[in-house]
């Protein structure tokens, strides 16, 4: 789109279609709609890396019910766009988490939940611990040990704000 908007209809049909698609992707009503859609279908991978998983489960349970916010844990990584690193990751687990993250389709986000995932927590000086930001691009940090389900809900809502703020980059370019 470096040529400017007026030159969309230049070239053969395939090129025109491609160009107009690129043009529409950046337009407000489309991005807004996509951001709204993504915001209410934030499906995290059901991957309990550690003990914060108990509070993650409590967050999905009837009292806090994060499904209200479109947050529904999913079994397979191929259908998800959010990974919540729930607490400590060891070397053995970090390799699995990274692999699951790589399998997720773009766009994807990461929430680091709990002190261990943020800064090592109480296990900070252990030889077997890796913190989340060392191997994943973390978007939101939720402190607590373990965080209350409300705090996780707040993390999810902050992530939604972030998605909405950066909605112009939401639709990936041609190459996946």
């Amino acid at each position: 789109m470096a040529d400017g908007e007026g030159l969309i209809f230049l070239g053969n049909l395939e090129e025109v279609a491609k160009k107009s698609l690129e043009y529409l992707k950046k337009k407000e009503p489309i991005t807004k709609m996509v951001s709204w859609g993504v915001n209410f279908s934030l499906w995290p991978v059901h991957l309990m890396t550690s003990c914060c998983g108990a509070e993650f489960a409590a967050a999905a349970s009837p009292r806090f019910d994060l499904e209200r916010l479109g947050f529904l844990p999913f079994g397979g990584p191929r259908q998800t766009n959010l990974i919540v690193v729930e607490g400590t990751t060891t070397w053995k687990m970090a390799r699995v988490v990274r692999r699951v993250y790589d399998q997720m389709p773009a766009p994807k986000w990461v929430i680091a939940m709990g002190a261990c995932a943020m800064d090592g927590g109480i296990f900070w000086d252990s030889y077997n611990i890796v913190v989340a930001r060392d191997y994943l691009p973390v978007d939101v940090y939720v402190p607590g040990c373990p965080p209350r389900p409300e705090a996780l809900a707040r993390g999810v809502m902050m992530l939604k704000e972030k998605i909405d703020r950066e909605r112009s980059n939401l639709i990936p370019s041609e190459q996946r």
Partner: protein
Amino acid sequence: MSESSAKERKLRNPIVGHIRALAKGFKYLVEPNRMTLDYPAETMKLPPNYRGFFTVDDKKCIGCSMCEMICPPQAITMIPRVQVQSGQTVPEGAGQGKKTKRPVVNWGRCIYCYFCFDICPVDAFVPSGVHDLAFYNDKDYRPSYEEYLKPPEEPYKNSKKVVSRPDLKRGVGYEPAP
């Protein structure tokens, strides 16, 4: 084995079982017991001893470093106190005495065990009542001393404050906070 009175179990007839399970399910369909907290609109006011975010009372603190010593994840660091009460700033390292040090907590590493509260000989820590915060990047959760002194802001100010109470019908009920 002093008492070997193992219990005999009774299995339920499948037809009766299915009917009773369906009946129970139907009962909860017409008469649902919702215990959900509508989170951003309603927020919980927790019991006074709940262990959430906290600050330190600058006037009470004597800078003894006990909290730094007991902190299990070493989230507390004692830093030279730069700002004095009147608001004027003294250069770092000025006044080498014990009383010039103050604790600062790394929220990313704190595990909210409140050992620091209990070891403090002058009871200088103050709970803030806030328990649900989140951060966008890893710089945000390491406050400076000035930032740490201000209690964290409650995220949803306009929300309805509720406290939980036991409810005979749905387990957890909510009533407006006093």
